[in-house]
């Protein structure tokens, strides 16, 4: 992106003042290098978001922002229902409630080193991954509705985890306001046999070791020490969320004009929050959030089984579970007043600071863990929400490295099997049914995740706590 078209407010904050149909400014949080690497489409999309009815304060782009669908991936925008605010299917994305869950294991890197291939094979056997994979469950219509209503709480009731897991999951594992009846039969059909599956694309399960601690008090509160082994799960609401996204995007495109909404880009399709279509989408989207939470809960159970088969003394507990494709109702301070807003985060992570009531009690004094996925060859990060983040972008942070190269380019440059051999030489074991899928997800196809999290810290969006490097990666 050409920085000349932006006004630099401070080292890591760039602004586009309202012009044309923009109702609020657009703000990009990133270093100069990251801004230059961003596609011009990010600028165009964030300006378009700033034109949507009822938007509050500004349309924001996170340091990992890249070209998305209507909203940039790495986009944050909040809407006031009282001022005709909208909810946008594109602003949430196709993979509703895609997110990251990180598990502590009570193990160190030395404990895993000797059994690494066995553990990799055990995880690959236990966790269905990739195209055409099926979960262990085949849900009836009634069970599907219970899952969509109950989320991870439903999964725990079915024996896939503990109450302690729920206390470390956003929304305590169950999103209120889900409406299973707003979810189509097509969406339910796509999910019937997909519970507890990882999916493909950029989704993964990694065994990682802690290689650096940046913030010792926060690390202590999170239970993380240098050299510890953790497990991170990155996946979402699978076929159900994809189908809901597809169906509502179409309906919102067709209906927009009936609601008097002039769409700058069809992909920005949206409906007023207080409209039958808006309310129906919110009910379906919340059901998809529950599906994602249940999915990650079942995968947690499978990870525990896979570890028990190789290292029986491992004790896996949930550090935190956070979603990065959502629209959630939150209270935020605007011009001295508390407002109830519908906050869209598309490829952006909620990052509540210390003392926020939504943060689990045990972590409340320090802030919410912010889990950032990297690539299979580089690193991931654990960050913590800051008090100042509230004033920056409605308590939001980045979500990952962000692609810098298309899939087409990546498959031309890398061969999956060679990549897996190279990574194995570096001590990183990849297990995947798809060499081409691995090539498309090559570490070199992504931006430097370290630069992204550093920019998030400099911009005051969140603060680095620990760096994690992969030892095993299960890839769909």
């Amino acid at each position, binding site marked *: 992106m050409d920085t000349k078209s932006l006004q630099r407010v401070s080292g890591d904050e760039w602004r586009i003042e309202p012009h044309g149909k923009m109702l609020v400014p657009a703000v990009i949080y990133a270093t100069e290098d990251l801004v230059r690497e961003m596609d011009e489409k990010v600028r165009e999309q964030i300006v378009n978001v700033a034109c949507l009815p009822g938007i509050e304060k500004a349309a924001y782009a996170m340091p990992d922002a890249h070209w998305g669908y209507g909203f940039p991936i790495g986009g944050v925008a909040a809407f006031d229902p009282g001022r005709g605010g909208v909810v946008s299917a594109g602003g949430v994305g196709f993979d509703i409630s895609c997110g990251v869950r990180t598990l502590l294991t009570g193990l160190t890197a030395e404990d895993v080193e000797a059994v690494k291939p066995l553990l990799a094979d055990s995880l690959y056997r236990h966790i269905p991954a990739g195209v055409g994979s099926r979960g262990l469950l085949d849900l009836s219509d009634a069970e599907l509705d219970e899952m969509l209503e109950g989320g991870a709480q439903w999964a725990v009731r079915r024996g896939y985890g503990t109450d302690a897991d729920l206390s470390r999951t956003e929304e305590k594992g169950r999103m209120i306001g889900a409406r299973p009846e707003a979810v189509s039969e097509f969406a339910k059909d796509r999910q019937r046999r997909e519970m507890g599956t990882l999916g493909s694309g950029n989704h993964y399960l990694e065994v990682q070791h802690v290689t650096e601690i940046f913030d010792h008090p926060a690390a202590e509160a999170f239970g993380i020490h240098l050299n510890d082994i953790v497990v991170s799960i990155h996946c979402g609401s699978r076929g159900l969320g994809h189908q809901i996204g*597809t169906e509502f995007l179409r309906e919102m495109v067709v209906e927009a004009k009936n609601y008097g909404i002039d769409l700058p880009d069809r992909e920005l399709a949206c409906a007023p929050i207080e409209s039958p279509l808006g309310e129906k989408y919110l009910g379906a989207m919340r059901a998809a959030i529950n599906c994602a939470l249940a999915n990650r809960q079942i995968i947690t159970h499978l990870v525990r089984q896979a570890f028990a088969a190789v290292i029986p003394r491992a004790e896996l507990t949930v550090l935190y579970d956070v979603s990065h494709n959502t629209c959630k109702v939150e209270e935020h301070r605007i011009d001295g007043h508390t407002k109830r807003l519908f906050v869209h985060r598309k490829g952006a992570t909620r990052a509540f600071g210390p003392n926020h009531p939504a943060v689990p009690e045990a972590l409340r004094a320090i802030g919410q863990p912010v889990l950032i996925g990297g690539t299979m060859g580089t690193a991931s990060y654990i960050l913590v929400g800051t008090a100042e983040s509230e004033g920056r972008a409605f308590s939001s942070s980045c979500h990952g490295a962000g692609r810098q190269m298309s899939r087409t380019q990546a498959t031309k440059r890398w061969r999956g099997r060679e990549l897996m051999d190279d990574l194995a030489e570096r001590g990183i074991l990849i297990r995947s049914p798809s060499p081409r899928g691995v090539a498309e997800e090559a570490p070199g196809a992504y931006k430097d995740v370290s630069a992204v999290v550093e920019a998030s810290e400099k911009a005051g969006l969140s603060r680095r706590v620990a760096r994690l490097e992969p030892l095993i990666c299960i890839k769909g």
Partner: protein
Amino acid sequence: MLWAFRSNLSQMADKKREMAACVRVCSRMNEPRWEHFQHGADIGIRGVGPTKEEAFRQAAMALSAVITDPAGIASEREVIVEREAPDDEILLMDWLNALIYEMSANQLLFGSFEVRMANHRLDARAWGEKVDVRRHEPAVEVKGATCTGLSVARNDDGEWVAQCVVDV
């Protein structure tokens, strides 16, 4: 980046320019064909042919090729798709999303297609088989067809081009 889109696809003038950019490459062959174009995080699919039907058929081939080599998919199962939409662009999205649904819900891959269209209505058949992970080595599952890069229009050579970005 030959296929890069730098303009807002919602604007007609820009659309024409993009089609012209496409034509520069497509017109080399002048026969029905499919191709992929680049998108930041995902992938663009494009079908080109002498008729709208052929462009839709080729776009479906491009969709399958995101996942695996369409030539390696046997025609063991037939699926019928019937859709109606307010315009051809939404009809293209509907067509691709119907295939994505079948692939996801029934674990199918498709390698050949027949398409008939009239007045924004599509009657089509797709032939394929159950996914075999060892044989097909599927690269990625497709989540949905999107409005990004969505276009159904004639290029300067008079060929029909049907395209959009799919989320993977």
